[in-house]
C-alpha cells in the first residue's frame, strides 16, 4: 500500500468557528489547527460538545459561521479523505465481515470485485481479524466489531481519521489492547487522527497533543503537547512519571471544568 506513505500533507484548520443549538451556544470563536500526521485527543466531561465538534469536522453539521477546512475545502460526510469511526461499531448486520470492510470501496466503485476483496483482506488482517471474513458481525465480540469498523474506515486510505469515543463501550482490558493496536497501526500508516474520548489514560497514552474542552460556549480550556517519547509501549508508557503527572493535571482540569458548570 504505497499511498499511505504520503498521507497527511495538509493541516486541518478550524477557523473562527461558531455553532449553536438554538439558544444554546456551543462554540464561540473556536480555532484549532491540527498538524498533518498529528494524533490529537479531545477530552472533556460529557455535555461539553465533543461529539458536536466531530460532527462539525466531518460535515454532518454545518457551522453557523467560520469554517473547517482540509486542503482549503470544507469536509463533507461523503468525502473520501477522511474516515469516521463511531462510538458503536455500526456495522451493517446483513453483510459479512469482509463485505462490511469492502463497503466504502464498493460505494466508490473504482476497483474490480477481486481488487476490492484483496484490499479489504489486507486491512482486515491488519486489525488482526484474518479468518473472520465470512462471519456475520453479530457473531463477533464488541472489540472485534470495533476492529472491523476501524478496518472499514481504513480501506479508503483516508488522510484523516475521526474517532468518536471508539473504545468507550469496551471493557478496560479490551480497551488497552485496542489502544496498543491503534498505536501500531497509526505508526505504520501515519494519518492525522482526531480522537474524542472521556478517558484520561487513553488520551495520554495515545496522543501527541491533548485539548481539554471547556463548558460551552467557552471553547478550549487547555491545549498542550505531550512530551512522552515514542514509540510508546504498554506498561512502560502507562507507568512513567510523565504519564502520572499528565494524569494528575488533566484530572484537575476536568474537575475545574465540571465545577465551573455547576456555578454557571
Amino acid at each position, binding site marked *: 500500500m504505497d499511498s499511505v506513505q504520503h498521507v497527511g500533507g495538509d493541516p486541518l484548520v478550524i477557523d473562527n468557528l461558531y455553532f449553536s443549538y438554538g439558544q444554546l451556544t456551543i462554540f464561540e470563536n473556536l480555532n484549532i489547527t491540527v498538524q498533518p500526521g498529528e494524533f490529537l485527543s479531545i477530552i472533556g466531561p460529557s455535555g461539553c460538545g465533543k461529539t458536536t465538534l466531530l460532527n462539525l469536522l466531518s460535515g454532518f453539521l454545518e457551522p453557523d459561521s467560520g469554517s473547517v477546512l482540509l486542503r482549503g475545502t470544507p469536509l463533507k460526510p461523503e468525502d*473520501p479523505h477522511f474516515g469516521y469511526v463511531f462510538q458503536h461499531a455500526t456495522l451493517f448486520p*446483513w453483510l459479512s465481515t469482509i463485505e462490511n470492510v469492502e463497503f466504502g470501496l464498493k*460505494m466508490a466503485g473504482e476497483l474490480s470485485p477481486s481488487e476490492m476483496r484483496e484490499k479489504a483482506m489486507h486491512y482486515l488482517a491488519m486489525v488482526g481479524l484474518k479468518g473472520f471474513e465470512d462471519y456475520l458481525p453479530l457473531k463477533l465480540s464488541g472489540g472485534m466489531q470495533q476492529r472491523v469498523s476501524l478496518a472499514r474506515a481504513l480501506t479508503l486510505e483516508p488522510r484523516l481519521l475521526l474517532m468518536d469515543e471508539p473504545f468507550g463501550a469496551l471493557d478496560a482490558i479490551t480497551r488497552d489492547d485496542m489502544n496498543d493496536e491503534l498505536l501500531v497501526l497509526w505508526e505504520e500508516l501515519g494519518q492525522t487522527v482526531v480522537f474524542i474520548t472521556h478517558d484520561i489514560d487513553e488520551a495520554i497514552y495515545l496522543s501527541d497533543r491533548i485539548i481539554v474542552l471547556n463548558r460551552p460556549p467557552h471553547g478550549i480550556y487547555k491545549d498542550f503537547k505531550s512530551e512522552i517519547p515514542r514509540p510508546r509501549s504498554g506498561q512502560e508508557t502507562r507507568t512513567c512519571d510523565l504519564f502520572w503527572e499528565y494524569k494528575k493535571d488533566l484530572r484537575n482540569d476536568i474537575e475545574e471544568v465540571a465545577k465551573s458548570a455547576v456555578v454557571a
Partner: protein
Amino acid sequence: MSSVQDERLPVKQKNFQFSWSWFSIPSLLLFWILAVYFMDAFVFENRVIPQVWEVVAEFWEMVKTPTDAHDTYYTAGGEEPKKYWWTLGSLGAHIWQSFKEVVIGFVGAFIVALFLGFMAGFSKGFREYITPLNGVFMSIPAIAWAPLLILMFEKFTAIVLVVYIAAVSPMIIAIMEGVLTIKGQEVRAARALGAKPKQLFFYVYLPASLPFITAGLRIGFSQAWRALVAAEMVGGIGVGLGHLVAMSDELGSNAAMMLGIVFIGLLSYIFERLVFRRIEKRYEVWRLH
C-alpha cells in the same frame, strides 16, 4: 457471498427428529371423525358435516371431472380435450381462479405499498397526509366495497380490486414503520463511507427494511386472502374456492363445501411456506439484535 450463505443456512437436522407437531393434524382428523359419529348418533337426523373419507371421495370425484372452462384452457384448438391429472379437474378450476385473483390483487397492492410506504417513511409531510387515509381504509372491511365494485366493473376485476383494497393499507403501514425504525447510525456510517443518496437507498434502506417488508407481505396476504374468499362468496363468477363453498351450500353438497374450506387453508399455508418463509430465511440470522 457463497461462504456467507453457509452462515445463513440452518443447521442440518437429524432426519427423524421428534416433534409434537406430528400429532396436530392427525388429532384434528381423529376429532373430526369421532365428532361426526357422535353427531350422527345423538344430535342430527340428517348429517351436516361429512365424514373425512366422504371429503376425500369428493376430492377424487372433482379431480376426475373436467370443466370446459378450465380444462380446455390447457388444450390447443378444438380437438378432443386432453386431460391432465395435475390440472385437478373442476377443483383445479376453482383453485386456479382464486390464485389468479389473489396474485393480481396482492402483487398490485405490494408494488403500490412499497412505493407509498417508503415515501411515507422518508417524508413527514406525506406520512401525515396518508395516515388518515390508511385509517379510513383499514376501518372498513374490504368486502364492504364488493357490491359497489361489482356494479362498476366486471366481476373478476371487482374481486381483484377487493383483494387490492384489503391488502394495500396494512402493507403501507408496515413498510412505513419499518423505514422509520432504521437506525440513523447505519445511515451515517454509510454516508461517511461515501454512499450517495441512491446508494443509501439500495445498500442500506432496502436491506435494512427487508424484515419489515416481509412482515408487511404477511399481514397484507392474510388480509388479501380473507377478502378474496369473502368476495368470491358475494360476487361469484361461478368459479373460485370461495364460490365453491357458497355454491355447494345451495347444491347441498356438504363434502364439496368442506373440501373448499380445506383447500382455502391449504393454499394459504403453501403461500406461507414457499414465499414468505423463504424470504425470512435470508435475514433471520442477523435480525436477532
